[in-house]
């Protein structure tokens, strides 16, 4: 069930009605939980049992943790959660790679061929619950007493499948408090939902056709096409995930719940460190708080910590060498950037404002292209396809194809220029004070974009992770 479908609307409207018409918080939460399970089971009903199982297991483990405060118990529950993630997401890949490695030595490993059943959103809800277990162990969050509240925390349909990854201390208190109907929140939530819809259907799905085509047979691309289609993928990925996260935040507001911001104009960053503070913010901060800092952060073995953290982030995105390499290279880049910053920090602080602005603009441009180059690994289905794409981007023969499709050119330029105004227009403080006419005009611009390209339904990219 996709957010941009009438099927979802048919689930959302009655859930909203029950939620706001009920005075009992228990009924409200029950409505949210039932809706979430229907939403999840709609994709693949056996996965719903897995979700229910992990809810029960993690609820019980946290309750015990509250009492015992045991490192072993934490290790055990994290191991179980990660094992499930590993089994469903990585076991088939690991088995295939083991078989391949063994065959190099003339051995035939009797490993079974594993199914490709990947429960939707498993990477997201596993990380959310690991954070919860660690927080309970650390004492920064209390173990939730109510199974129903915990079940909603783990399965709320707005963020179940692709985040944002919410933290217990931010979200659980919201579930305990019986929200008062706030017209402003509903008002803003409706607008965010429309804005996310436009980003998904009107931007991401339009750019998708160019990126998909380019990665299907990169060897035939002219140099200019390879770059333009790579930009198309970079913007597609951003618009797709930004759109999803925005819809999720909008949905949360419809129920009086605040979900965290997940994107803050990442392509306008001037360093990779800044990029990761603005891109998929809830995942980046998860890796910072639960991997990077526990490893020692920047206090000791900084480079190793960055490499391990970013490689883990790469693996989190998918089972494949392309993702491993993608994460590793991001780690390496962050390490180099950090070393350069330390080396030239004094010069940067003493530069004139003009030179500093020029340097920021240049580094922003370089950063965008560097990130784009690494997106090749993220998008390519295999290393040979990625290397073929890199060859067309960087190596001769350099061919220029001047017949750039108008839609591609307009969407690339338009999105590059309008991303910042759109993000600003979405802010509650800017949107709500406008006149009803201005609000409706912005809403209809977005709706027109959505309507124009409506018809096809594509999954959100991050559903695959």
């Amino acid at each position: 069930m996709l957010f941009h479908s009438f099927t979802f609307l048919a689930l959302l409207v009655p859930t909203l009605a029950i939620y706001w018409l009920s005075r009992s918080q228990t009924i409200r939460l029950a409505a949210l939980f039932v809706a979430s399970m229907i939403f999840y089971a709609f994709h693949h009903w056996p996965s719903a049992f897995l979700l229910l199982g992990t809810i029960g297991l993690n609820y019980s483990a946290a309750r015990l943790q509250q009492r015992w405060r045991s490192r072993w118990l934490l290790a055990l529950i994290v191991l179980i959660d990660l094992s499930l993630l590993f089994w469903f997401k990585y076991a088939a890949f690991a088995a295939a790679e083991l078989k391949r490695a063994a065959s190099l030595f003339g051995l035939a490993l009797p490993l079974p061929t594993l199914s490709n059943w990947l429960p939707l959103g498993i990477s997201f809800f596993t990380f959310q619950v690991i954070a919860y277990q660690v927080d309970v162990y650390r004492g920064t969050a209390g173990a939730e007493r109510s199974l129903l509240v915990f079940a909603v925390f783990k399965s709320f349909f707005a963020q179940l499948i692709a985040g944002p990854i919410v933290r217990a201390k931010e979200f659980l208190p919201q579930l305990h408090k019986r929200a008062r109907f706030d017209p402003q929140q509903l008002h803003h939530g409706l607008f965010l939902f429309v804005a996310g819809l436009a980003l998904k259907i009107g931007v991401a799905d339009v750019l998708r056709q160019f990126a998909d085509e380019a990665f299907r047979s990169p060897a035939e691309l002219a140099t200019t096409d390879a770059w333009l289609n790579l930009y198309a993928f970079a913007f597609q990925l951003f618009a797709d995930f930004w759109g999803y996260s925005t819809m999720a935040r909008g949905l949360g507001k419809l129920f009086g719940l605040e979900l965290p911001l997940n994107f803050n104009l990442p392509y306008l960053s001037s360093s990779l460190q800044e990029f990761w503070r603005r891109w998929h913010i809830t995942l980046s901060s998860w890796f910072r708080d639960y991997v990077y800092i526990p490893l020692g952060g920047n206090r000791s073995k900084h480079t190793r910590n960055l490499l391990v953290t970013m490689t883990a982030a790469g693996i989190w995105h998918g089972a494949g060498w392309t993702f491993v390499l993608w994460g590793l290279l991001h780690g390496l880049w962050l390490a180099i950037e950090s070393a350069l910053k330390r080396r030239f920090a004094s010069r940067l602080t003493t530069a004139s404002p003009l030179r500093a602005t020029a340097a920021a603009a240049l580094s922003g441009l370089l950063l965008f292209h560097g990130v784009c180059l690494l997106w090749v690994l993220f998008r390519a289905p295999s290393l040979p396809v990625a290397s073929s794409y890199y060859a067309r981007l960087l190596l001769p023969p350099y061919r220029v194809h001047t017949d750039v499709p108008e839609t591609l050119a307009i969407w690339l330029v338009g999105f590059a220029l309008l991303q910042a105004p759109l993000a600003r227009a979405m802010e509650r403080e800017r949107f709500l004070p406008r006149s009803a006419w201005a609000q409706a005009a912005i809403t209809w611009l977005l709706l027109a974009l959505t309507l124009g390209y409506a018809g096809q339904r594509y999954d959100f990219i991050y559903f695959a992770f």
Partner: protein
Amino acid sequence: MRGTPARNLALYLVVVAGIALLLEGACRHWQKLFLAASHRSLFKAALLERRLPQDIVFFGTSRTGEALRPRAVLSALADAGAPPLSAFNVSTPFSSLDILQAVATRFSGSPGLKLAVVEISHQQLGRGALPWGAESLAADADFHARAFTWLEKHSALVAERKIFVLNSLSRLMLVSLFAGRFDGTEEFGSDYLVSILGLSRDIGSNAEPINCAPRPVDAPPASLNEFGEERDIYLALARSFQEHGVEVAFYVPPALDSEHAWETGTPYRALRASIHAVTGRPIWDFSECHLPPHLYRDATHLSATGGSYFSRSIASAIAADPRLAQALGMRQATGAAHALP
């Protein structure tokens, strides 16, 4: 925004709904125009409709769009003794045989039309449902698909939603404001701009001759094993024009090299022979006429310059056919007056 939050929310919803109603009304009122702006073939047809009457109309795919430039054809025909004539190229990229049939049938009875030149090519023989036709709902369609189809049926705003695509909006502007400026060969935004500004890029009568003569129909019509349905569509087209007293001629556009000249293959030759045998109308086969490479945009499309040159070959072929020449009111059939070796 002033007022209570509840009032503001209500006002916002009312204005959004009000705009939806206004747009629904507009889509119902201008449904035909919006539909025309939403599909390139219907757009071309709408441009032609606004340019009627026309003496000559070219039908085909993007290959004809590039190859037959009305101004160049008319200029060459005038040199061959034709009275002042008008011509329009109603071809569209990715046109299928079904689109060709729909568009050609629509204009076959247009008053004043004297000659229709219709493309026969590998690309033109492609089949497919009309893109502007209503899609039928699959038996296993889910709730979303059913709801969407229901909305499409009951709301003009949803049915004509393609009007909100950027291309459609620009087409809407072009067809509403500048239809009289175009001859149908425009494809990209820059082409439309050039035409709006009146800066024709066609080569005039001083075009250098090119060595490009059509081959005669040379296959026995009985050898038609493929393209039976396609043949019937072409025959129906020819009948439709002839019933309205319009002359029709078919042609095969040139390709860069023999690798891309699919039309030299036996099934294509048999198709042409079969059409010729039934209709008796001329079929000019330029499939083996390989013009210099610099006159091509790609393997199957001529450039604007190449099209200007090639158009003169078509004009010569028209002038060389006494029946067509007479239909166009030419003083005398001068034969290969220009450009042919």
